[in-house]
């Protein structure tokens, strides 16, 4: 209502429509000339044109009926599934599911035709004469406003809310506390983080098992320039917690000429040029899978963080914030590659408690 604003409102333009609706006054060429007279369409004045429009609308509705029958027929006749017998060649889409294509097209046509018929009906046969409706201000009149405020004051006074402070304060306290029960109830959504993110399944003496063949590996199995994915010994796909374990323990093995390894500490953590790095990107946890064997760079396909495996897993491009953790490996008495312990740093994305 009244402006609480301390600033002048003189810069506001004149209320729009103050002169609106008036007929053109001589001298003001911009005045509202008023709603132009209605122009009849052909279907309004020509009975034949109207009859033709009616037939067109009916044709759309008939088409819809035919398409619905087609939909039911397709449902009964065609089989679902990916077998080649169930596909149909449609240019330029290629081989697509016969059932999906026929159901979709018939359903689409049956719906579209109803819409087209209705819109055509509205555009040709229903009156297109424009009507004027008045708008009324949304704000209440000052009398109503006063009445509402008076009623409210009356109600507030009768409740004694403002006067009886003890009731007010205890009620606010109770209302503020009661949602705490709801918050507490959410506690069992999951466990506390504790140190869960800091460790993986890797431990001293665990052999590296090839992810594809499920066999323990010897250094000789890994050729220079190859990329091999591995998991800790004893972890099986059928394990109940396999997904959680592999989400942290997945590693990749690369082998390079010992002379190519720039980071000497990193070389010492490997075995004869075989280096083992976490496969989980340190950005947001995607598995890294693209290896460039000439440069020893690995690229995460999700956000293109690029790591240099010959230089301690250093980030050389992209949004990752820290190097890929390296797993210290060696060979055991039987010549199999084994871990010398867990990762020294938590794998995967950074988090607040990560030191």
């Amino acid at each position, binding site marked *: 209502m009244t402006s609480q604003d301390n600033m002048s409102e003189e810069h506001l333009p004149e209320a729009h429509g103050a002169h609106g609706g008036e007929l053109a006054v001589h001298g003001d060429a911009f005045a509202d000339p008023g709603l132009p007279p209605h122009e009849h369409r052909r279907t309004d004045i020509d009975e034949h044109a109207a009859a033709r429009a009616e037939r067109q609308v009916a044709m759309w509705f008939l088409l819809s009926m035919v398409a619905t029958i087609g939909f039911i027929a397709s449902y009964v006749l065609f089989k679902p599934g990916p077998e080649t017998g169930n596909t149909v060649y449609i240019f330029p889409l290629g081989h697509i599911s016969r059932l999906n294509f026929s159901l979709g097209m018939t359903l689409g046509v049956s719906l579209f035709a109803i819409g087209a018929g209705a819109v055509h*009906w509205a555009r040709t046969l229903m009156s297109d004469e424009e009507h004027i409706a008045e708008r009324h201000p949304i704000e209440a009149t000052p009398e109503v406003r006063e009445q509402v405020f008076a009623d409210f004051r009356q109600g507030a006074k009768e409740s004694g809310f403002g006067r009886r402070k003890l009731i007010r304060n205890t009620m606010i306290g109770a209302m503020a506390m009661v949602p705490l029960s709801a918050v507490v109830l959410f506690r069992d959504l999951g466990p506390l983080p504790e140190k869960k993110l800091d460790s993986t399944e890797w431990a001293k003496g665990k052999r590296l098992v090839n992810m594809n063949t499920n066999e323990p590996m010897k250094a000789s199995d890994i050729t220079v320039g190859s990329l091999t994915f591995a998991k800790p010994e004893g972890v099986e796909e059928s394990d109940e917690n396999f997904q959680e374990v592999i989400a942290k323990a997945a590693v990749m093995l690369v082998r390079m000429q010992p002379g190519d390894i720039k980071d000497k500490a990193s070389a010492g953590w490997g075995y004869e040029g075989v280096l083992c790095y976490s496969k989980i990107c340190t950005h947001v946890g995607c598995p890294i899978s693209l290896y460039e064997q000439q440069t020893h760079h690995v690229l995460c396909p999700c956000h293109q963080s690029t790591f240099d495996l010959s230089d301690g897993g250093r980030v050389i491009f992209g949004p990752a914030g820290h190097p890929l953790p390296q797993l210290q490996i060696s060979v055991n008495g039987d010549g199999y590659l084994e871990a010398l312990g867990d990762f020294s740093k938590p794998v995967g994305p950074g988090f607040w408690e990560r030191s």
Partner: protein
Amino acid sequence: MTTHAEPTSVGDHDDHQVGHSEAGVDQAHIGEKAADWVDGRLGVYGLAKANLRKIFPDHWSFMLGEICLYSFIIIILTGVYLTLFFTPSMGEVVYHGSYTPLNGIRMSEAYKSTLDISFDVRGGLLIRQIHHWAAIVFVAAMLVHMMRVFFTGAFRKPREINWLFGFLLLFLGMFDGFMGYSLPDDLLSGTGIRFMEGAILSMPIVGTYIAMFLYGGQFPGNDIIPRFYTIHVLLIPGIMLGLLVAHLILVFYHKHTQFAGPGRTEKNVIGMPLMPVYMAKAGGFFFLVFGVIAMVSAIASVNPIWAYGPYRPDQVSTDAQPDWYMGFSEGLIRIMPGWEIRAWGHTLVLGVFIPLMIFGLVMIVIAVYPFLEGWITGDKREHHILDRPRNAPMRTAFGVAWITEYIILLIAGGNDLFATHFNLSINTITWACRILFFVGPVIAFTITKRWCIGLQRNDRDKVLHGRETGTIKRLPHGEFIEVHAQLSPEALHTITAHEQFQPMELPAEVDENGVKRKVSLLTRTRAKLSQSYFGEAAQIPKPTPEEHAEITSGHGHH
């Protein structure tokens, strides 16, 4: 309030008499009796009186909101069907089914049931595709509808709250879409859920706790799919339905906006009645939207989860892309440098956390804009006549800058696709997007503002000197001129109907007693903004009737 009610539509009053029991009551009588029955219990006649012949103005852009409404209905209809077949469980099964390439593979029940919907339920694939396509259309339509409302100033008083409802629908729609495409638990969407874990972990102090609570333990756990399911099919759609109803009630209550034109004022609304024209047009349009989406779903595959395989945290496919509406957040995360601050045994993962914050900022900016502009103009009046975008250059430029930023981020989100398709270096694209992130909106803003002012100048010329006809005339003394034609009174009125604000002036530095006035920083900011919005550099004064009379009264040649 009401329109020209047709007296013919009101029936014969004899029907209301007690004991009326004529043999062979015709259909109209039965219909009226049924209506009376309902009215006697719900009092619907008052509502019907106000709304049956309610007037809606006509403009093509007003149907954008309808696309949102209809695609939302399609999503609900198809979504209910999908729940009948989908199993929201991460329990592991070994697949033996009609899609032979995956036989013997371990997968979650969620993934298996999605395969079954796609390959064993007749029409299941179609409904899945309609559901997904409708979701894509839904968010796109909301964004475009919002742009329509933005660029025409339809968000101004009294519609700011409805703007907020619309914003919340867009925001919730995006997230419900994300959860929806995550439910099949395929390799692509699982990667999205992993990304979400990384984003949550980046939050200082609370990150690991929220992640553990949300996933019910360590990633991926067994809870996230069933939890997303409840949120996706019940919680968010429930809230959205409420917001949608409120949004529509307000559209009816405020009555629709209209563009300036002959006869159209702030105090009226001119158009055609709901019954029958808009019932047929808008009702028919539902079927058109549904029909087109069904046909698209018949021929264009979306989210072929069987091609991706079930989710495994140690596997990934290249070209991993979210649905388009999440693309701009993907772009933010891809162009951000990997900043991390490590100190006192803690890590602040700025490289992920900053994009998360900017994501919120990009969204919030749209939500609060109406209030910002209302504050700058100080305008407290109702507005029902729409602005032409050129007549609000700052607003239009701001909107275009926002869209530019959005598109740059979309491109950044698909930098790998641009690299492989156009044979470019991914590093170059990423760096270009990093620079454009800051420069692009500024350039877009400047160009748009100048463009708007140019169009205003053009309008002014048209009003004062008429429209160029393309006819060249040679005058007796040899000079060639182009004949200009006067605009019609309708066009003159339409082009000059907009209002122009004067920039806010600060009070004099010292008051009448020579005492230095205290002007708060907020007031000074507001005056600066007002100057940039309505100062001389931001608008061309529209011609006055006097100027027009002076020029046209001389003679018509120029």
